[in-house]
């Protein structure tokens, strides 16, 4: 055993001497041998395998991403307590993406080449996902992405565990339309998710007789919203569709309340505010406002009770659970199921085994769609209560099939 580990160390030293780029081009040269190249990089030789956790533990996104990181750690701990995956314990390696997209790409590369992780879990903003996407594709390594996003993407090396557009934004628009709120003002952070989401919302609105009365973007991390709120107030909208991310939301909702706008006079539907954000923005600023997700802490079911209890036992009994946390939590379990079905950590085999994997998740039943590498999810619209929790006011009744390119919608044909 010791002799083996010495020879492995020798191999490692040799590889690092060659340099990361040389190792990469060697892998690239072996075209067609997808399996062996991935196997050579991810280290599965010992009693433990490493999994990468890539989240912003600092910066403007930390408000949200730290909780996702906690949920990932919880899942890893539970899986280890139950015997691990294929008899091997998981060793989580955390890297801080620092709310900075190039840093995400750099840390992803570190996880793959230096730590030789078998899979990576994390990222929140689409900008960070877009930044790491080529890294995972180049290295043929897997990323499990736990957050709702704008759709129109399908990387062979990413599993999208959060909702795509037709599982969150479109149901949310359907809901607003049903409520008779047809004049929308779009407010978002200035990066890929809000820009793309709003493009889709515009297309939807055009096809469904809704009107977009204004559209504004603030730089990520911006805290000056007085003018945007004034514009919202003057535009004569029925509702605001909010795709702001991170703690810009704090400044936006403080300003919103200061300007005398309320959930009654002009409701805001947010797609990036979950329980954790409600708590840190302040319940008094958000009470009565709407959110669109696939999971709330209050979602009924035994699986959710168990998850909430385990999370609060680990991180404090006043800590809320949220949709991205739940998606992160189940992403590790879904990966475990895939690996066990495949009987191997090998990336190609795991991908091949993914279709049809089911889980009784806290959010209800989820099923992996192998073709798109997305997940069937139930859409849920919620309302923020005075206790800071979100209660469901509507759901789609059954898990919706993921449709990242919105092929099932005629109005979306012009989008790309």
């Amino acid at each position, binding site marked *: 055993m010791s002799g083996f580990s010495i020879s492995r160390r020798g191999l490692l030293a040799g590889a690092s001497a060659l340099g990361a780029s040389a190792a990469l081009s060697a892998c690239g040269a072996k075209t067609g041998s997808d399996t062996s190249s991935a196997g050579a990089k991810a280290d599965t030789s010992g009693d433990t395998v490493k999994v990468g956790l890539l989240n912003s*533990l*600092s*910066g*403007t996104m*930390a*408000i949200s991403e*730290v909780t996702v990181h906690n949920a990932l750690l919880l899942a890893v701990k539970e899986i280890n307590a139950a015997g691990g995956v294929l008899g091997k314990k998981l060793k989580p390696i955390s890297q801080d993406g620092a709310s900075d997209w190039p840093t995400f790409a750099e840390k992803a590369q570190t996880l793959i080449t230096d730590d030789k992780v078998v899979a990576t879990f994390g990222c929140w903003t689409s900008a960070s996902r877009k930044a790491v996407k080529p890294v995972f594709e180049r290295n043929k390594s897997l990323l499990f992405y736990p957050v709702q996003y704008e759709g129109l993407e399908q990387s062979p090396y990413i599993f999208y565990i959060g909702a795509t557009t037709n599982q969150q934004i479109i149901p949310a628009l359907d809901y607003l339309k049903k409520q008779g709120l047809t004049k929308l003002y779009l407010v978002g952070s*200035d990066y890929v998710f809000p820009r793309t989401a709003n493009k889709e919302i515009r297309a939807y609105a055009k096809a469904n007789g809704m009107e977009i009365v204004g559209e*504004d*973007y*603030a*730089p990520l*991390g*911006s*805290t*000056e919203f*007085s*003018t*945007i709120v*004034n*514009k919202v*107030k*003057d535009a004569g909208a029925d509702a605001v569709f909010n795709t702001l991310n991170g*703690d810009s939301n*704090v*400044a936006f909702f*403080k*300003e919103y*309340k*200061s*300007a*005398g706008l309320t959930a009654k006079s002009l409701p805001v539907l947010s797609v990036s505010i979950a329980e954790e954000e409600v708590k*840190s*923005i*302040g319940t*008094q600023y958000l009470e009565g406002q709407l959110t669109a997700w696939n999971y709330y802490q209050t979602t009924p079911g035994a699986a959710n009770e168990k998850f909430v209890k385990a999370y609060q036992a680990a991180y404090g009994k006043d800590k809320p659970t949220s949709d991205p946390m739940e998606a992160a939590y189940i992403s590790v379990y879904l990966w475990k199921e895939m690996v066990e079905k495949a009987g191997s950590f090998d990336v190609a085999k795991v991908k091949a085994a993914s279709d049809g994997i089911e889980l009784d998740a806290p959010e209800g039943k989820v099923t992996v769609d192998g073709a798109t590498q997305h997940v069937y999810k139930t859409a849920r619209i919620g309302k923020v209560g005075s206790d800071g929790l979100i209660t469901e006011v509507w759901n789609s009744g059954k898990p919706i099939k993921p449709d990242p390119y919105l092929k099932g919608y005629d109005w979306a044909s012009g989008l790309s």
Partner: protein
Amino acid sequence: MTVILNQSFTGISIGAVLLLIALGLTLTFGQMGVINMAHGEFIMAGAYTTYVLQKSISSAGVSLLVALPLAFLVAGAMGALLEWLLIRRLYTRPLDTLLVTWGVSLMLQQLARDLFGAPNVQTAAPDLLTGNISVAGITLANNRLFILGLALLCVLGLTLILRLTPLGRRIRAVVQNRDLAEVSGIATERVDRTTFFIGSGLAGVAGVALTLVGPIGPTMGTNYIVDAFLVVVVGGIAQLKGSVITAFALGVLQSVLEYSTTVSVAKVIVLVAIVAILQWRPQGLYTLRTRSLA
């Protein structure tokens, strides 16, 4: 019409924030010529002072009022310490000052991260400051009015100190002609430290005000430092009047442009305007006329 009035008020309130964060800099950068990149972290120190106070004093209103003088002292003391430890050794080397204070700024950010955690935190605003009042169809947010009042109070206080007190006279003397002041018997080193104390303390006060509009985080200072320098540079260093006028002008310009275009376009136009102004008046809008040869 209400749109114009509303936007004017918004602009003035943005200007008040700019003025508050730039006010301390008019002393340390404007009067003393020190490029202090850690100025933003003194703002952060003031904000975190509010946060810490609110943990021990439950009433948001009381903790805010206590935080104002306390943040002044905390940030001021940090500034005085920085001046005594590093900056006074580098008065003749502005570029080194820039690099050293930037390093200090990074260290302070990391210190805040270690002390308070990396995620940003929030403070509760007193109920009185979360509402608004309507005057003739325009909405005046109470927290903005508070910041405006605070900014004007700080300007007034600073003006009175500079104009009427012996300390102010000494500060002006040192700014106008350091050598002459020194041969006249003024302890210029002590004046420098006091000036730096006041300038940094004002950054702390700005930090308290910023907790009313946004989150508190280790990097919050960096969001504001560039704007603060812009105000002082355009206003003309060494002149309080210039900073006041520039802060409000930039605020109104930003908000009016933002209303008719977008946030990013407004920012671009404002920056282009600043470049144009500096082409026309490289020394800034207002300059101090002195007889010193330097």
